[in-house]
């Protein structure tokens, strides 16, 4: 009996621990500001389950009339390095110093995001910035926002709603990213391109855009051949196995086109094991995406050849649009496609690594 009681007590504490640090998936674990982690769980427990957590960034005292009130609805920063960088960028831009009073809400669930949007409308924000988890279901809340005179700006993801309901949408063009990378590869003027193509999770926007450019190029040119085209589902280790398999089958290849940095890293591990030279002046060209800091450092060291950017820094674009709207000028076009760079190992500098690494 005593033992059982003890076991019960221990489990209860463990369960409590779980809800405090892990069970609350959407918010506290995701909070990049370390100072907040202590108070965040308490907030989470009180918040009703169906409502996304809303946290006040700027203290109420500083929220005088001059500050522009923005409500930012984002995906969970825990989702990926991209999202972490995106969130940090937002937090760095929309500060009181820059004239903003920003509130943030995070969720990977569409309905929670919509609930958060409704709350922001009640709070009477000036601007609503949304990176939607899902594409549908936003019409009603966006109409409400419009009626309340709140301007909506979408970032990173588009939604299926009438264009009149939002001011602008700032997005990445994955197909363009793919085209930039493949054009760079074509500009290397190799006599023959024998490509190992490692894809991301099939059907994801990044995979479709980045694959299409390569597929088109291989289909259009006789000196481009696809040695292997496989999905590693963004997983470094699976990518390693795919390249290992090509090496074991004595396939001849001179390009590794991986759709993210992790998979390029896995591929390189297989090359190193077989002592195949890669990178600048190597036998195999290595290409990756996302511009992780460590990946750009590989470029700087000449181990890889190319890294394509998937730009998470939308805040400056949004800032520009808001300042324009405040001055009374509507953005030139509804859909703003961000500049996305591709880095070449031969030209990359330490400044690029510091500036663009995520």
């Amino acid at each position, binding site marked *: 009996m005593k033992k*059982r009681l003890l*076991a*019960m007590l*221990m*489990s209860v504490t*463990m369960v409590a621990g*779980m809800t405090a*640090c*892990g*069970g609350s*998936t959407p918010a*506290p*674990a*995701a909070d*990049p500001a*370390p100072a907040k982690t202590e108070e965040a769980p308490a907030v989470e427990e009180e918040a009703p389950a169906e409502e996304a957590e809303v946290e006040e960034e700027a203290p109420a005292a500083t929220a005088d009339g001059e500050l522009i009130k923005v409500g930012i609805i984002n995906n969970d*920063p*825990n*989702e*990926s*390095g991209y999202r*972490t960088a995106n969130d940090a960028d937002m937090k760095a831009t929309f500060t009181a110093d820059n004239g903003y009073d920003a509130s943030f809400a995070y969720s990977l669930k569409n309905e929670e995001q919509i609930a958060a949007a409704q709350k922001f409308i009640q709070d009477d924000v000036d601007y609503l910035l949304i990176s939607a988890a899902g594409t549908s279901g936003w019409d009603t809340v966006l109409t409400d926002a419009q009626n309340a005179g709140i301007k909506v700006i979408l970032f990173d993801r588009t939604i299926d709603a009438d264009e009149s309901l939002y001011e602008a949408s700032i997005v990445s063009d994955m197909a363009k990213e793919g085209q930039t990378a493949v054009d760079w590869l074509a500009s290397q003027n190799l006599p023959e391109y024998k490509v190992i193509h490692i*894809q991301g999770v*099939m059907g994801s926007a990044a995979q479709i855009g980045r694959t299409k450019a390569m597929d088109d190029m291989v289909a259009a040119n006789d000196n481009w051949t696809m040695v*292997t*085209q*496989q*999905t590693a*589902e*963004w*997983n*470094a*280790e699976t990518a*390693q*196995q*795919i390249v*290992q*398999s090509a*090496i*074991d*089958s*004595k396939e001849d290849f001179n390009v590794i086109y991986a759709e993210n940095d*992790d998979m390029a*890293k*896995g591929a390189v*591990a297989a*090359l*190193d*094991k*077989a*002592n195949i030279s890669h990178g600048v002046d190597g036998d195999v060209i290595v290409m990756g995406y996302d511009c*992780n800091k*460590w990946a750009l450092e590989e470029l700087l060291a000449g181990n890889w050849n190319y890294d394509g950017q998937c730009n998470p820094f939308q805040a400056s674009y949004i800032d520009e649009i808001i300042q324009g709207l405040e001055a009374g000028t509507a953005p030139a076009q509804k859909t703003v496609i961000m500049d996305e760079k591709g880095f070449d190992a031969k030209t990359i500098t330490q400044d690029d690594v510091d500036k663009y690494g995520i």
Partner: protein
Amino acid sequence: MKQKKSFGEIVNVIVHKQIFIPLAALFILVVFNFIADLIVNDGTSFFEITYGMSKDGYHVLSGNLITVIDNASELVLLAIGMTLVTAASGGQDISVGAVIAIAGSVILRIVCGDGSDANTLQAPIILAFFAACIVAMLFGAFNGMLVAYFKIQPMVATLILFTAGRSIAAWINNNELPVMNAPSFGYFGKFIPGIAVPTPVLIAIAGMILIGLVLKFTNLGLYAQSVGINPNSSRLNGINPEVIKLITYVILGFFVAIAGLIKVSRVQSINYSVIAKDIEMDAILAVALGGNPLGGGKFNIWASILGAYVIQMLTTTLFRYNVDATALPAYKAVVVVVLVVLSAPVVRERLNRLFASLKSKNEGKEAA
């Protein structure tokens, strides 16, 4: 009196062994690759093993077979733990992938320290590994507690960590994706300089020896089996079913920590959302392929281990023949369905009866 067994009888004995199914599956894959080698005949063989030089200037073994035994290592370790858990608790732990993420995150957190320098270890790896072991075993104990003392279905109990584990892993490292480039950190997932066999293979063998010794010199195997068959009667015989169940989950936690070390060492970094993704399903599959009843009771660790190798062999074979990426899971599913159906106790019993009736008919004919 006893006469020499006929060939048919010997086959019969082998077929009735539990280990027959994974062995047969392995054999079929080997034959398939052998025939495919002959047909394709492009100067390469699935079975070729080369003794080459790695970038660091050390001799290493490589080839498809090496890839199979190398990449199966984590799965082998998990299959050992999962078999014990299955036997004792009559259910499976679906949180192993998530706990691997946690263990890996703990290891990187400790070896990376403040993350200022990605090229030197900030703390000894052994310390990081011990910490990961403790953490993974605690989470194992948590699962075991829910299963043993609260009588929650194992799959439901472990669903908690399955859902939350990867977030916990991210939280341990403040949501960053640490990288540790020190060469010695790669020894556990790649090669130790001067040793041509991939380290994960050696670790997996060590794990097998360890569990072999434990099963031989302790009563763990017997106890787990009896608890799985009937907890009440084992209690009457002086075994505490709760403690035995708890122990099996803690043991699984230990193996999960080792698998986590191998995983993070392989790529020298971590990605919380994809590390060891879906590995819990493969581990359960390995147990099922080994012919172990998933409802608990009798078990055969070695059959599960063979099952793990079969799964990796299948994956490597599919990569080798460059099966279309979108169709790959479908191919895998077909093979898995056939194997699992064949190894299901019901089917095997039916087949046995069928054999027996055929045999008695034959005997009847001979007598007449």
